[in-house]
């Protein structure tokens, strides 16, 4: 708009200038023409004036001549002829009476002088005739002299008149000549001006051509430049948004369209504050008009972008005022920094964990030199970060582990990338404490080890409480078993009639006491089992286990028990290569438990089927019976401790209610799952899933075991 307006003013000025020049030129030409015409006329007047000279000179001759030769008649005739000649010349001037030259005085003067000269000449001729008459009459010389004197006087007056006319003619001639000269000069000046105009016109044309050419070139350059800038603006990774001084969006590049989800034509003309989080709009408007800052918003944390769908994102905003065509424009460069903010947030979180966790963290470089430690490390070891930096973690060694121990530890770290276990270390104050240590390696993108990270926690208290618990379990175990041994042993010998025969009723009562003492023994065993497994106190000796073989052994071991219930145990055709990583004895315990449950809940003459199935990534072992099934109401509590579905039915009541809890605890420890499916009156299937053993898994275990501390209570985690 502005440019167009300015251009039209320029065009108007140019046109006015050209018009003025044209008018001037025409005026000049007209003037020159006029001068030319005047010049011609004046030349003609001058010629006419010149033609007056000879007749005028002749006018006084008859008077002079007649006085000398007395030829009055001849001279009268000459005078008439001369007067006629003069009149004719004078008439020639009349044609120019309407000229621009002021000639009235001349005409009047000439006519007056001519009239006087003619009258005086006639008088002289009259006096000459009188003198002739006197002389012929012979009159006295006095009278002749009187006439001659009068003639001479008249003659003198006539000479004066003649001289006045002559002066008028000469004066007129001079004035005409001067006028001609003036006109000539004026014409010359006009022509000079014309030359200047022509020159200016020529120069202007040349200049215009040059300017035009330059304008065309500049136009092309501008167009090319604009295309280039367009291409840049639309392809940069940043959103570029211009906003006018009313805060309305003026342009919106393609990245902005993608970033905010608006098409440019939907957002142009709307306030920029539509594009930022509603809470920041006011602040934005304040910052926008602070006159001292040409740029603002450089602190990316201040603004949250708002997409069309209302979602927000972190943006880095830099805004700069510029002037285009004299109008202020606010150019915003917006970058979506959500990912960066998230990364920063993750880093901040990680740093916060590093600082605040109660686990001591120690980071070394690839040579094992300590690079960084956290506050918890200082709290545990007593070494401040400054004291630890640059040292080798050996400063913590207590000397309680053998060189072989550390060798095995580092072998594991180098081969598998990690190691974990219990280590006795020495604090700065010399105190020795047990710690759980977890070492991991950090590698760069090319797989080269850059750092080792040790995460450690002081397990002194844990160890102490474990020891107390162990002692408690051992004591309970011993103290309960000893009297039970006596009760059970006595009842057994009584029942076996070793101490003498029993009556039928006595035998029945002894059997009841005996069965319940057995039940009590199992209960104690199971409680201790659950406590040990759940406290992870029970060592698990992991080794590859062939499931089919184990199932066969379990069936063999429990077949006699099943017979008591009139039930048969049967292995389904299985999968030969089914191998899992497990503790054989514990797995046997699980199988036995599931089988005895199935047997106890099977109808007499029933069959309990045990099979192995391959599932995605794991093996499933199923123990299936055709018993009454698990009541709907009990299904949620199947794995709860002391839970028995048939709690009221003690007909077979030899269970402790802990079996499935133990199974679940064991399978959990082995990294598997346990579950069941039950269709009332049709079948119940208990199953457990264990991960398919990988070659890799095997080597890992070997490595872990080789790196275990000598202490055989080393736990297998997960």
């Amino acid at each position, binding site marked *: 708009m502005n440019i167009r307006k300015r251009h039209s003013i320029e065009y108007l000025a140019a046109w006015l200038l050209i018009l003025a020049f044209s008018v001037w030129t025409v005026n000049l030409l007209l003037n020159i023409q006029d001068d030319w015409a005047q010049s011609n006329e004046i030349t003609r007047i001058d010629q006419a004036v010149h033609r007056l000279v000879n007749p005028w000179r002749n006018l006084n001759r008859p008077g002079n001549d007649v006085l000398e030769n007395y030829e009055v008649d001849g001279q009268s005739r000459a005078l008439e002829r001369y007067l006629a000649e003069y009149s004719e010349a004078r008439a020639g001037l009349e044609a120019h009476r309407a000229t621009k030259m002021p000639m009235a005085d001349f005409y009047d003067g000439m006519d007056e002088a001519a009239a006087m000269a003619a009258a005086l000449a006639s008088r002289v001729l009259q006096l000459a005739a009188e003198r002739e008459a006197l002389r012929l009459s012979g009159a006295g010389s006095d009278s002749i002299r009187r006439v001659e004197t009068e003639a001479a006087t008249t003659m003198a007056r006539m000479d004066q008149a003649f001289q006045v006319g002559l002066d008028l003619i000469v004066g007129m001639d001079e004035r005409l000549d001067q006028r001609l000269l003036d006109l000539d000069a004026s014409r010359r000046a006009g022509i000079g001006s014309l030359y200047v105009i022509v020159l200016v016109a020529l120069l202007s044309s040349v200049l215009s051509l040059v300017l035009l050419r330059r304008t065309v070139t500049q136009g092309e350059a501008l167009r090319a430049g604009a295309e280039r800038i367009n291409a840049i603006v639309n392809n940069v990774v940043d959103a570029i948004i211009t906003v006018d001084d009313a805060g309305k969006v003026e342009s919106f590049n393609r990245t902005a369209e993608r970033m905010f989800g608006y098409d440019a034509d939907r957002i142009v003309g709307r306030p920029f504050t539509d594009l930022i989080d509603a809470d920041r709009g006011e602040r934005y408007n304040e910052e926008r008009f602070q006159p001292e800052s040409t740029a603002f918003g450089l602190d990316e944390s201040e603004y949250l972008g708002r997409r069309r769908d209302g979602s927000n994102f972190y943006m880095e905003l830099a805004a700069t005022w510029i002037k285009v065509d004299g109008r202020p424009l606010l150019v915003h460069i917006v970058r979506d920094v959500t990912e960066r903010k998230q990364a920063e947030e993750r880093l901040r979180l990680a740093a916060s964990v590093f600082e605040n966790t109660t686990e001591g963290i120690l980071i070394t470089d690839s040579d094992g030199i300590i690079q960084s430690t956290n506050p918890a490390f200082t709290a545990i070891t007593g070494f401040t970060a400054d004291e630890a930096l640059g040292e080798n973690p050996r400063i913590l060694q207590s000397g309680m582990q053998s060189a072989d121990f550390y060798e095995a530890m580092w072998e594991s770290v180098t081969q598998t990338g990690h190691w974990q276990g219990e280590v006795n270390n020495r604090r700065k104050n010399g105190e020795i404490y047990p710690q759980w240590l977890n070492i991991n390696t950090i590698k760069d993108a090319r797989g080269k080890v850059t750092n080792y990270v040790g995460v450690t926690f002081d397990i002194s208290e844990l160890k102490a409480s474990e020891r107390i618990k162990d002692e408690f379990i*051992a004591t309970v*175990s011993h103290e309960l078993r*000893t009297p*039970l*041994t*006596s009760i*059970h*042993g006595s009842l057994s010998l009584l029942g076996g009639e070793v101490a003498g025969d029993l009556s039928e009723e006595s035998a029945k009562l002894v059997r009841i006491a005996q069965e319940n003492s057995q039940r009590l023994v199992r209960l104690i065993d199971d409680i201790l089992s659950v406590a040990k497994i759940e406290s992870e106190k029970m060592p698990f000796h992991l080794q590859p286990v062939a499931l089919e073989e184990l199932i066969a052994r379990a069936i063999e071991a429990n077949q006699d028990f099943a017979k008591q219930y009139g039930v048969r145990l049967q292995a389904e055709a299985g999968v030969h290569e089914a191998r899992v990583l497990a503790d054989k004895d514990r797995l046997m315990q699980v199988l036995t438990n599931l089988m005895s449950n199935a047997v106890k809940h099977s109808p007499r003459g029933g069959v309990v089927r045990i099979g192995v199935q391959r599932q995605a990534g794991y093996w499933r072992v199923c123990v299936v019976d055709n018993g009454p099934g698990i009541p709907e109401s009990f299904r949620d509590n199947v794995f709860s401790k002391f839970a028995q579905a048939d709690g009221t039915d003690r007909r077979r009541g030899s269970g402790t209610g802990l079996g499935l809890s133990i199974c679940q605890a064991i399978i959990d420890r082995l990294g598997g799952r346990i579950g069941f499916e039950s269709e009332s009156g049709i079948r119940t299937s208990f199953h457990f899933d264990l991960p398919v053993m990988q070659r890799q898994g095997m080597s890992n275990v070997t490595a872990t075991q080789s790196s275990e501390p000598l202490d055989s209570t080393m736990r297998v985690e997960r």
Partner: protein
Amino acid sequence: MPEPTLNRILYVEDDADIRTIVTMSLEKLGKFRVAACDSCAEALALVDDFRPDLLLLDVMMPDVDGPATLQVLRERVSTASAPAIFVTAKVQTGDIERYRKLGVLDVIIKPFDPMVLPGQIERIWQQHWSGANDYGG
């Protein structure tokens, strides 16, 4: 080498009730000769006269426990080479392994069934000697 007959058993147990039960079981059901003592000291006092074929030792005893008693008896000529079996209620992790390393034939866990105890001991005895025969060629 023919298998020696198991006849004389030295039993050390601090709990009198259990001592009674075991003695009754072994004598009446197993027809063994049993010398039951309540401590290591009492055992030492009679081993030279009794000359047992087998040592049956409780583990958890005050003053001198089962393993220590075994160690002491090993220093006696009359019991230096007598096979031993432990009886214990203390079956914590690794216990059985550790006892086996002390040179005992087996470990019988309390509570045991006295009705089958003689048979159990007889079986361990036989397995020991057949194993010894295998090794001895």
